[in-house]
């Protein structure tokens, strides 16, 4: 039987991405986990990490092909299959969470994306997500219009906005100084975070740090 070293496949896959940073599979998985948690706990949709998702999907395909060559009796096969299933859950759950937010806040998100394009900054949604969001928004709009057709002249649009003041738990990855706690008063308090410290804080105060990856939500 061919000796297929899946272990080494799992541990030392080097992937070159555009920035020429070499990441091993465990590191990618960890990144994915972090982004998944961020997405799960943040009230608004975050910049997409389709790059990681695609890398992982490629890896899953490779791993599954390798697994097929292993005999069914091999004890290791079950363990690796389980690992592959776990990764797939991670990706699915991440994308599902994003879709859920896109559907709920479709109108607001589309507007934000438009202004991001105008400012020339990077869009948060991937191309496919954007298409989905547009189709979804359109379909809801048409449905509402057909309900209101009986009485022209009444226009009613209700925007659903994410609540950015939700409290989130976060863990800091670096020392950060001077986070402004905006509690609606004129006096703003400043706090400093040490590396590894965990706090409960309003999402609005830290959203930039979440997006830049200096802190992650737990």
């Amino acid at each position, binding site marked *: 039987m061919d000796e297929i070293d899946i272990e080494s496949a799992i541990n030392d896959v080097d992937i070159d991405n555009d920035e020429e940073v070499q990441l091993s599979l465990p590191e990618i998985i960890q990144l994915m986990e972090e982004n998944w948690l961020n997405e799960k706990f943040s009230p608004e949709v975050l910049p997409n990490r389709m790059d990681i*998702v*695609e890398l992982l*999907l*490629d890896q899953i*395909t490779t791993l599954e092909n390798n697994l097929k060559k292993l005999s*069914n009796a091999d004890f290791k096969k*079950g363990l690796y*299959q*389980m690992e592959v*299933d*776990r990764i*797939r*859950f991670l*990706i*699915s*759950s991440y*994308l*599902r969470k994003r*879709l859920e937010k896109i*559907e709920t806040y479709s109108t607001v998100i589309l507007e934000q994306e438009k202004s991001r394009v105008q400012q020339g900054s990077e869009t948060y949604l991937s191309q*496919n*997500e954007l*298409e*989905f969001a547009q*189709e*979804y928004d359109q*379909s*809801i709009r*048409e*449905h*509402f219009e*057909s*309900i*209101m057709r*009986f*009485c022209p*002249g*009444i226009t*009613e649009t*209700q925007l659903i906005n994410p609540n950015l003041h939700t409290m989130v738990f976060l863990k800091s990855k670096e020392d950060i100084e001077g986070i402004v706690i905006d509690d609606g008063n004129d006096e703003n308090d400043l706090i400093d975070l040490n590396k590894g410290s965990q706090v409960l804080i309003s999402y609005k105060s830290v959203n930039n740090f979440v997006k830049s990856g200096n802190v992650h939500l737990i």
Partner: protein
Amino acid sequence: MFAEKACNLIKELSRCEEVLPPYHTELVKEVCTEIKQLHEQNKEDGAIVANESSIAGYANALYPTLRIGSSAVKRNVRCLLAYHYNRLKTLRTMRWEFGSILPQDIKTNLSSDEIEWFTKYSRSFAKYMTSIGENGLNLCLDLRPPKSLYIEVKCLMDYGKFELSDGTILLLKKDSRHYLPRSECEELITQGVFQHIV
């Protein structure tokens, strides 16, 4: 009282969360008529208030009526839209559970607009799923974090032959029990062919 019927629509929603009651055509129609009447009334009152411009707007005797009328319209519209929006939400959850084909008993509870919306949603959702990665990814699977590779399932109906991905063919009979890879039977569980025995 204004908006009472619209309120009944909302009550109906909250009574049956997660299931779709029949589309309440009559009540919706009644609410629409109420909105229309109020809207017409408001227009007339508005015109009168505007004509008597010698009296300042808020001092006009009709002003409170106008205010109440317009907020009644707003409230009605809100309730009407909320009723429809929440039905769509439930419908969306069903797309995730049952796939693109709805069971007949649910279909009979929908309005024609809702069926149309479902087809549209189903199409864009399917398009999105095939666009992920190279081969697409079925987001309706892997709904819960995997705990074990194999699970025990009980077959609830005579399903017939079922081929596993490694080529083994199983005969699924009612009340038979199987010990299968989780990934293989997840779809049959959501379809209601299998019951997961914990």
